[in-house]
């Protein structure tokens, strides 16, 4: 007698369509992200000009970068400029984004209109925005200096001045102005770039707005019952509840500042000038790879910055345990 299993209908296992649907992305990821990522490690140990096969030169590229870091030239200038930009742009963008989100959460007439207006700069193409800012920041005829003049503030040199505001020279200019020795011409090219980045704060503002809508009303009601005022509610309810989003915006902002390229390229006409003040990491890498054809050196530089970025992100996550609060059950 045949066993029952002989009469069991044959079930054909149909292949899962999931990988098939994901295959365009998987192929794209492997070819356009994973492979170049891995290849750049090898290239960083090579002399490679994009056209001829890479030639192994050991750690020469890394030694050259170390030499530049020692002398404060090339890569060191690019890192210093990028750090200046990140240290000013990231916190300012978070603060301005948060303040705008709070203001735009107030139930006032025309709320949707104001939200659109403040978000609009974030959707303007970076090339158009950069050219617009070139006009606005023109030291002689720009609108920004015109408005500052109304407020009795001296014309700033913006994109023509290499010296940044937050520097020893900037402090000297400020103290000299206090003593009545000179005009208060503080802002340099890098400060102009920071101003531009703060103008396009719409994305983080929208994220803050969404997160604020997610804060449970019961917390505010409890705070009101406890007699908390506006500031206390903000300090002890809103801010802690938004802290995961602040962490997110900080990390994303850090990555964004390191990747900033198009605006710098346009503002400095692809040179990093005035006086190397706009030579940020991405521009230095681009010029090394595609103008000087030093793809090996550029790859080594990219890897060092990648490691630095990972370390900074890890540090942010490490510190987050002291200031980021996650809702129970969330």
């Amino acid at each position, binding site marked *: 007698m045949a066993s029952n299993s002989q009469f069991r209908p044959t079930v054909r296992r149909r292949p899962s369509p999931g990988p098939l649907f994901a295959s365009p992305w998987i192929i794209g990821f492997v070819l356009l992200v994973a492979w170049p990522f891995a290849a750049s490690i090898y290239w960083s140990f090579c002399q490679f*000009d*994009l*056209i*001829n096969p890479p030639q192994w030169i050991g750690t020469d590229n890394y030694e*050259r970068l170390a*030499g530049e870091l020692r*002398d404060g*030239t*090339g890569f060191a200038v690019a890192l210093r400029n990028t750090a200046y930009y990140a240290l000013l742009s990231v916190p300012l963008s978070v603060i301005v984004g948060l303040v705008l989100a709070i203001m735009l959460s107030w139930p006032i007439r025309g709320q949707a209109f104001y939200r659109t207006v403040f978000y609009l700069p974030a959707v303007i193409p970076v090339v158009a925005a950069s050219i617009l800012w*070139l*006009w606005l920041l*023109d*030291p*002689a*005829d*720009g609108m920004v200096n015109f408005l500052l003049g109304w407020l009795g503030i001296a*014309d700033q*040199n913006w*994109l*023509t*001045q*290499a*010296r940044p505001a937050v520097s020893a020279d900037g402090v000297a200019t400020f103290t000299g102005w206090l003593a009545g020795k000179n005009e208060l*011409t503080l802002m340099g090219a890098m400060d102009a770039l920071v101003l531009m980045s703060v103008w396009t704060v719409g994305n983080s503002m929208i994220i803050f707005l969404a997160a604020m809508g997610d804060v449970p009303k019961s917390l505010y009601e409890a705070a009101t019952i406890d007699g908390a005022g506006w500031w206390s509610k903000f300090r002890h309810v809103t801010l802690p509840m938004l802290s995961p989003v602040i962490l997110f915006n900080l990390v994303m902002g850090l990555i964004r500042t390191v990747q900033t390229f198009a605006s710098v390229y346009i503002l400095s006409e*692809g*040179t*990093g*000038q*005035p*006086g*190397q003040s706009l*030579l940020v990491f991405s521009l230095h890498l681009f*010029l090394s790879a*595609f*103008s*000087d*054809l030093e793809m090996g050196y550029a790859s080594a530089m990219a890897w060092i910055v990648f490691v630095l970025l990972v370390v900074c992100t890890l540090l942010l996550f490490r510190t987050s345990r002291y200031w980021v609060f996650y809702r129970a059950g969330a």
Partner: protein
Amino acid sequence: MKRNLPRLLAITALAVVLAASGILARALNPRATGLDDRSEVVFWHFWGGDDRDVVDEVVRRYNESQARYRVRAIAMPGNNLQAKLFLSIAGGDPPDLVNQDDPIVGDWAARGIILPLDEIATRDETDAINEFLFPAARKLGTCDGRLFALCNGLDVRALYFNQSILDQHGLPVPQTIDDLDRIARTIAPPDSTDFRSRNFGYLPDSRRLWAWGYVFGGDFVDPSSGTPTLDNPGVIRAAQWMQAYSKSYGADTINRFRAGDQSLPGKSFPLLPLTNEEQAGRYAVIMDGQWRVRDIRAFLDRRQSQSLAAPEFGLCPLPVPPDGRRDAGWVNGNFFVVPRGAKNTRGAVEFMKFWIGLKNPGQAARTCVTGGWIPVSPSVVEHRDFQAFLEREPLFAEFVRLAASPNQFPIPVVTGAPLLKRTVEQAASEIMSHPETDAAEVLDQANRRMIRSGFGARHE
């Protein structure tokens, strides 16, 4: 069946449209119909705007003159021609001919990106071309004694001046550096304060250290060893002289005023008055290239048509210090290169010869007159059409005279030239932005940086 009818109809309609497009495309493409069996030369260039029309016109004339080759010009204005070219070479499908104006010949030659002319042209052709060219045009394309790029238009710089303003102040046309300094000091005294409404006499531009370095007798690379010499005494003296202007007027004032040049409507020539009431532009004397002759002509014609008085303009070579080079300066230009892997090198050579006017200088003269370009050969300059143009435009004639000078130098045609160019310009910008810095020290540091990057060593 009924349900499938609309789908069937849609598919049939699509098939008909596709078939019709195919037939139409064949009808419109002369190569596909077999009417044009000439061999195609794919030509990439960077020209846009009015210049693109001039290029298209040259291509049209060439194609009409040809039974064997047909040039297809592809314009790639902007900064991405280089990256696209590398990708096309790596992908095995490069164009047959490329036109460039960046200092890349040395770099690309050393890396085997471009082919030397002696590999794609006959010995007689190469000799004839070498003999045909101005020295400056030859220098632009020659690397290690071989011609890798064929120059088809020179860009020379000189000093334009507003004669009426100089006369008004009793100042002579600048022949020496002292003359130029006197013009600057007289028209805009450094101790005066109201710079915004001021017309400057002269202000050096940090990007022009290339030109002044040569005028002051300097060299940026040692021709025998190929090592960088940014610390050359001539280059240092030029940088110190330029920095003296920052010390006199203040770096911020100069930068601010210069930024105003960029915001002029249509980037107009700052030598020219902006309004009908004015007789002076932003500068009395300014360094610029031959393409500004067209701007001056347009300005004078406009004033004449409106019956308005116009100032007189002139042009002179860059003034010299006591031990400097006469008729010297920085020359660059446009040049053809044939990339490695090009399929129709013979066609590319024929088109290059046509453009520069090797066998028919009249064609090249016509192109240069239309485009306002400096010919690359005395043979083209001597052609009657071009001579007639020079009679109409005496300022242009001075540029042509300078183009023939042996003291006109390009950025050295060596490996790493783009890095050298950037390093020099960054150093000059730093020197002028920070008047308190020691120019010699900045240049010395820049030079050491170049050596450390492998510049010069690779050249050997």
